[in-house]
């Protein structure tokens, strides 16, 4: 008979290493050791700065994932400060993971939104809008309204339009119509404004 049974044996817990041991393990060449260290450190709120610093240098997706889960759980001003610079990262996975994590921290992100939306790089402003698109904060519609009214870059406005199709209320419609006028020569914007208004009105 090919089916064999082996009882799953509970292994004894290791003698817990201390914080410095875990920090040292974060630079191990073995990803499974780094994962274990990340898991342990992400249970320690005072390890947030170490984790944020390490995140930017961690090549392994599986280790990054564990660090980010820990940062999401801790969700503090320090965490947001550690994640915001990653919006400008060239590493798409790192950037997207940071966006995902920030989306989970509405109250902690709120004080930074204005400066994020004023970033000189239009791509970073797009990523900031991406954070807002899934952020559960009551100010989101108003922040997005300001983007479609004031941002000079068409693709930043397009991203905000997208987010408003879901999060917008009827009071934002005049701002959307203004956007369509501002970019009257861009076929996509005309289309997207119409679509967004339909979604917001519910008809």
């Amino acid at each position, binding site marked *: 008979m090919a089916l064999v049974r082996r009882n799953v044996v509970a292994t004894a817990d290791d003698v817990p290493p201390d914080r410095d041991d875990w920090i040292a393990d974060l630079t191990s060449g073995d990803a499974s050791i780094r994962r274990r260290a990340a898991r342990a450190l992400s249970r320690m709120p005072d390890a947030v700065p170490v984790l944020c610093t390490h995140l930017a240098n961690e090549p392994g*997706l599986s280790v990054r*994932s564990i660090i980010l889960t820990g940062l999401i759980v801790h969700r503090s001003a320090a965490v947001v400060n550690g994640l915001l610079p990653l919006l400008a990262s060239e590493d798409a996975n790192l950037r997207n993971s940071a966006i995902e994590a920030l989306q989970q921290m509405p109250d902690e992100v709120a004080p930074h939104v204005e400066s994020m939306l004023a970033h000189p790089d239009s791509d970073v402003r797009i990523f900031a809008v991406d954070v807002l698109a899934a952020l559960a904060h009551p100010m989101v519609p108003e922040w997005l309204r300001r983007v479609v009214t004031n941002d000079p870059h068409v693709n930043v406005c397009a991203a905000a339009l997208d987010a408003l*199709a879901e999060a917008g209320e009827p009071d934002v419609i005049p701002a959307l119509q203004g956007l369509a006028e501002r970019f009257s020569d861009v076929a996509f914007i005309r289309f997207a404004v119409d679509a967004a208004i*339909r979604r917001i009105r*519910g008809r």
Partner: protein
Amino acid sequence: MTMPVAQTETVISDEEFAKFREFFYRKTGIMFDAQKKYFAGRRIIDRMDKLGCATFREYFATIRFEASGDEMQRLVNQMTVNETYFFREDYQLKALVAGILPELAAGRNDGRPIRLWSVPCSSGEEPYSLAIYILEHWPDADRHDIEILGSDIDSAILAEAATGVYGERSLQRLPPELIRRYFSRVKDRGYRISEDLRRSIDFSQGNVVDPQFMRRFRDVDVIFCRNMLIYFDDRSRRETIEAMYDCLSPGGYICLGHSESMSRISSLFQPRKHADSIVYQKPSR
């Protein structure tokens, strides 16, 4: 109480339903086609009543802006049907024997058993289905040692699994000759799975969100984690997937439920196609 279609129509417009569909799809990967508007609409209206929302817009704002995500989770619970029976979603069992097992076996030279883990295993239909399907449909089953593990958080349901007695409803997808081969009739109770199979599954009780429990599972080749993660909150889902990554051997697989999508959960796994189904593989290195 049946609700006439017209009433659903007036409470939620087509455009509003389109907005809801898109949001639900973005968050869960589940897409309601237009025909499902009545089904989904009823459940939304139900939740609207319970929360005292006068309009759909009010309810949507709740699920869109609620930081805890609790109402969204309640809604997911309402929208999904979860029943267990033998050979459920057997297209994945087919992918297992036609693609996954041959691939694993080809690379297995050291005599280590191929380890499959069904979690949650509930009342046992899934791990026993794995056993039966492999014995029936994998020609090389005799040439390899196969371990099947089954875990659940609920010890009462695990006791049921160990007892292995099932009603007709649970066996509805099994051809009669398989019922004859692997079950014996128990008067007034249904069918009992053979003692050989009962003895061959390694059942354990535990919580996937408990790191100590998860540490017991290593070198797993295939995890069947169907219709569980969809009910978890974001944090538990992340932690569970990350823990399962560690439980798996390099090149090991996770199989999710039919309406679940790894693309809403994690990018740690690579999609692979076996026998026309998508399953998810841990990188080999």
